């Protein structure tokens, strides 16, 4: 049974603005670590806040377990304080006038937990997060990472069934972020809480989530496992948003582009319907180099290009190829054997081609591409 269920959820901030969230259907399973991923302004934080009850809906319904917590049609609105969730804010939102201990036990006091039990619980949570020595300090006396732990501890103390996290790592430096990511993953395993995590950082989403929901301009684009999202992007937006360096996109039917003509001819032999329409995407790591035609594997899309740049990124390299004005980027983990100015042959296995139709939707092409070409 899904833990959280959003159906037909819509949010409009009024006036003539476009919907911040439009017609969203999403279910989040019990114990899932769901990442809402998307560029800023895509509606992911709004979605999280609607789940928490901090924003009301314009249309639609939200259920938590069997309970309807929010429904415009039924006129139901359960306020945030009665939804029994936890939410960690991007700004942490620690109460500046309370000590770390009082910040942490605030929720327990509200629930009138007996003193002994409460202290035990607070001790336990503080130890788990390694903040027990700051117990009597005030939030302003702690570093960003420590504040972050307190914000987590405060919510974990009440043992919520659902934990919502709004870009909680974005204010931390790189090293701390890595550490906290591992910590979150460990907490998820330990507490078995359902977690909804909002981020614009694809790495964070990839490393943490069991399921990722990609959003753009208020619309849900794709829901799937991290591998799904990366290997089988549902549309061009997802393909371009996920992956670094970004995927190479070749428009079909661009007569001026050498690569486009090659791709068009290559696809056309398999998909007459895609001729001069749609586009293909090639992940940088999928492009291979060869000295000449003989090095190209059979049935692959291939072409000639000049190496116009080699950018070492430490352990791997980004190579820039230029083919008649069009640029292709590829990544390699082996020290490149080419030099800038060298002419090379590039090729891509049919399996690694992402094909998108005119509207940008994914077309399952790999199987068909691997069959022998029809004559035309």
């Amino acid at each position, binding site marked *: 049974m899904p833990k959280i269920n959003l159906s037909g959820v819509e949010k409009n901030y009024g006036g003539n603005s476009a919907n911040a969230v439009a017609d969203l259907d999403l279910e989040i399973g019990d114990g899932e670590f769901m990442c809402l991923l998307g560029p800023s302004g895509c509606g992911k934080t709004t979605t999280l806040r609607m789940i928490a009850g901090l924003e009301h809906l314009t249309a639609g*319904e939200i259920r938590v377990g069997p309970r309807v917590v929010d429904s415009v*049609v039924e006129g139901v609105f359960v306020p945030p304080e009665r939804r029994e969730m936890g939410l960690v804010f991007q700004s942490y939102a620690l109460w500046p006038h309370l000590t770390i201990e009082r910040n942490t036990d605030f929720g327990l006091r509200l629930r009138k937990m007996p003193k002994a039990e409460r202290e035990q619980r607070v001790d336990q949570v503080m130890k788990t997060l390694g903040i027990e020595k700051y117990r009597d300090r005030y939030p302003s006396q702690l570093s960003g990472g420590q504040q972050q732990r307190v914000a987590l501890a405060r919510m974990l103390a009440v043992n919520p069934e659902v934990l919502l996290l709004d870009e909680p790592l974005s204010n931390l430096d790189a090293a701390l972020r890595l550490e906290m990511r591992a910590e979150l993953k460990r907490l998820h395993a330990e507490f078995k809480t359902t977690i909804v995590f909002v981020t614009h950082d694809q790495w964070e989403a990839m490393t943490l989530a069991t399921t990722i929901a990609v959003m753009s301009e208020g619309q*849900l684009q794709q829901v799937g496992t991290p591998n799904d999202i990366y290997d089988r992007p549902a549309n061009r937006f997802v393909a371009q948003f996920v992956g670094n360096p970004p995927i190479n996109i070749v428009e079909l039917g661009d007569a001026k582009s050498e690569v486009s003509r090659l791709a068009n001819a290559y696809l056309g032999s398999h998909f007459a319907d895609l001729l001069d329409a749609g586009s293909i995407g090639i992940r940088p790591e999928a492009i291979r180099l060869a000295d000449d035609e003989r090095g190209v594997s059979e049935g692959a899309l291939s072409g000639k290009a000049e190496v116009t740049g080699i950018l070492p990124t430490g352990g791997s390299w980004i190579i820039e190829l230029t083919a008649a004005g069009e640029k292709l980027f590829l990544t390699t983990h082996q020290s490149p054997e080419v030099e800038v100015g060298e002419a090379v042959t590039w090729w891509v296995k049919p399996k690694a081609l992402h094909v998108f139709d005119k509207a940008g939707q994914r077309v399952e092409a790999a199987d068909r591409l691997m069959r022998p070409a029809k004559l035309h």
Partner: protein
Amino acid sequence: MSGPAQTSAQTSAKPAPVRRNSGTSRLAAPTRGQRLRYRMKVALREPTTIIGVLAAALFAYLIVVPIISMLSDAMRVQFGDERRIKQDVGELTWYYIDRVFLSRISHDLFWEPLVNTLSVAAGAIVLSMLVGGTLAWLLSRTDMFGRRWFATALIVPYMLPAWTFALAWTTLFKNRTVGGQPGWLESIGFSPPDWLSYGQLPVTIILALHYSPFVILLFGNALRRFDSQLEDSARILGANRLTVASKIIMPLMRPSLMSAMVLIFAKCLGEFGVPYVLGLPVNFDVLATSLYQNISSRQVGVGAVLAGAIMLIGIITITIDARLMREARRFVTIGSKGSMNRLSPLGILRMPATGFAALMFVLSVGLPIGTLFLSTIMRVPGQFNLDNFTLDYWIGTNLNTVALQTGILLSPDLWNAAWNSLRIVGVASITSGILGLLVGYVVARTPVKPLGTFLRQVTFLPYLVPGIAFAAAYLSLFAVPRGPIPALYGTTLILMLALIADQMPYASRAGIAAMTQLGKDPEEAAQIAGAGWFRRMTSIVIPIQKGSLTTGILLPFISGIKGLSLFVVLAVPSTDVLTTYSLRLVDYHYTQAANAVVLIIAGLAYFGALLGQKLTKTNLAQGLGN
């Protein structure tokens, strides 16, 4: 506007979203009625909106209704004027408007006071720009000696009531034109001419001294924020000092200078005490004193027209200021990054510059306060013999005077006035401080946006209306019983209400700023943790806002204690506050006693501001209204 149709139109060019269907059947789109029911449920779930509605009603009554009532007075035949106008009481008439703007006496009623107001304001602006601008530059961009000390000391004139200076001036320069004790110059045998003793010149000089801290603060801040790198870039590109000053510095400083000018003008417009003390002897009227005279001679209709005119000028001025501030904000983003502030060495001019700052301090603080104090311990003005000094005016008994036969500190009238001041200003400040925080809370939190907008605007309205015009509006509404509300004129309640309304712009701005700065997060975190509205208020919002609430009460208190224009219209002898009491003493020529009371007020205002600075660790001078 139907959602789905709009969405599909928008997304047709983009990839259509992939949906993970929940298996349940699609929900029908909510009807209008359902949406409304849901929104009402969300809005009324918490008391925020209800508090907002109540506050909106309260402010409509305390702020909007008096102004409307006054404006309608200007258009209706007033009691006692029926025969002259040949219409019945309450009928619509152009009589008062005609009288103020067009009739034969319009010159004395309006046009001459207007010209006087404008010329005094213009003079004060020019003088304070010269003095304040120089001081601001010396303080913020040079290596003058004692800059830190001067930075605080030169703001002091603004913390004192403006007419402190007026009384000091009369103490020095009063001549035989009016009765009572002569000034010091007169009593040592030199008779100052009228143009030096009264009227335009002294009023202009005093207002300039009083408001130059404005320039020091506003212009000084802009100068401090100014990034030296902007200057350097121009120099590196080959511009000489003059070009840099005219092409880079001045254009960037213009908004702050203009803003200081406009604010000084607005303050001069409502200034009553100084022209009253120094203008009356030579019939030098400004708009505020003309209004006061019409009100005290019960010319309600004419008074209403005058108050409306002052209000209109005030509104225009503040609108201009708002424009300028918007322009200024556009500039702020420039160079805010690596804000480097380099000091120019003054070299040989370092001593003279310090001397100039010191002189200004002596002229604007030392001299007036010293003069006033000396005058209260001297029997005959200006004679520095040891036997001329006495403490009788402070603590004496059985003095040989008609009234006030004891020293001022032993007079029950003083303590009565002091108690009234504390009580009225105290209650009003605490009330408006709390109301301000509530307004801030509602504005920041209510889901009903128009309510927040209305509250913000209505509480700002009194800022546009000079105090004396606002007092006239109160008089118009509350002088007679209306409905269930009895006539409030002569009670302390009307003073409190008027003061609350008058302080709301500052209080609500402080409250809105505090609540906006706090943001929603801490409160929402408590909400998520399970705290209901009341609990969040008592254990999160109010404890966090303790500091700003203190400031929000203290600031209006200080400006209320030294305020005059509101009280002078609304107070009667039994509800005298310190300021009106001292003005009454001036009218009766009890010079020493009047000066003593003014010193007490100045002391209260100054030490109050100091205390506030200590408590909040900020520079309160910047927030001080008048």
